């Protein structure tokens, strides 16, 4: 069974409700198989989606999003500054829908470095990532054809040749 460090529930009471968490985890395999994220925010979609797939908030823990949003002027090598009202709204959306904190501590700022990402993609040959249509592991949409709509289902994958 695959285990993702993801909060696959759109509901929020996880931290406050251990029973709900236990129930969620009990149903985890079915939830994990869907890999569909529906939480949305207009500004998140427009601003984050302006340059890359608007990565679903569930893919990183809140501490990672906080750090990312605090350094938008140096965002993975580019300037992605936002006015503060927009940044505040997007940060709140990301943090309130974030994934669970990874057990091994230090939050990664790169989704592709998280343990669950590596595990989920470990069957792929290194050469696939280098194909020109893929270019970078950050380019979810190259293979996950529904990535723009938060759909990362295993039934919705076309690896470019």
């Amino acid at each position, binding site marked *: 069974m695959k285990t993702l460090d993801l909060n696959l529930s759109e509901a929020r009471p996880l931290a406050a409700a251990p029973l709900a968490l236990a129930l969620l985890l009990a149903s985890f395999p079915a939830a994990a198989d869907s890999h569909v994220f529906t939480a949305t925010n207009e500004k998140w979609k427009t601003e984050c989606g302006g*340059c*890359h797939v608007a990565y679903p908030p569930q893919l990183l823990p809140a501490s990672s999003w906080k750090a990312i949003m605090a350094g938008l*002027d140096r965002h*993975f*090598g*580019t*300037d*992605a*500054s*936002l*006015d503060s009202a927009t940044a505040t709204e997007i940060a709140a959306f990301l943090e309130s829908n974030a994934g669970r904190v990874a057990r091994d501590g230090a939050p990664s700022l790169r989704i592709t470095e998280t343990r669950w990402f590596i595990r989920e993609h470990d069957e792929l040959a290194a050469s696939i990532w280098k194909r020109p249509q893929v*270019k*970078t592991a*950050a*380019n979810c949409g190259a293979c996950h054809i529904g990535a723009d709509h938060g759909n990362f289902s295993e039934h919705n994958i076309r690896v470019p040749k």
Partner: protein
Amino acid sequence: MRFPAITRTAVAAAFMATAAAAAPQSVAGFSPQVGEQFFKSTHGNDWSCASCHTADPRSVGKHAKTGKEIAPLAPTANPQRFTSAEKVEKWFKRNCGDVLGRDCSPEEKGNVLAYLLSLK
């Protein structure tokens, strides 16, 4: 100003009036030629404007890092461009940061806009 009459792009005109006010020496001086040169040159960093927007801003561009498609920048090919002053400022801030490592001057912005608006 040397670029053709702008009726559709009121926002761009307003922006350029502001830019001109901030740089009085260039009131009549926005130049599509200088803007084109600026657009296609690097300015100390790896990227020029053309790195993502291509050397023909009427074409679909591609983000140099992520590969994401970028809609054409020239209003002749994409009427949505320069219709929101907020958006114009946001992208000038970001992209000038990447290309020049600083904010663009009002004159630089005016010249680039003059260039983009001059394309048919």
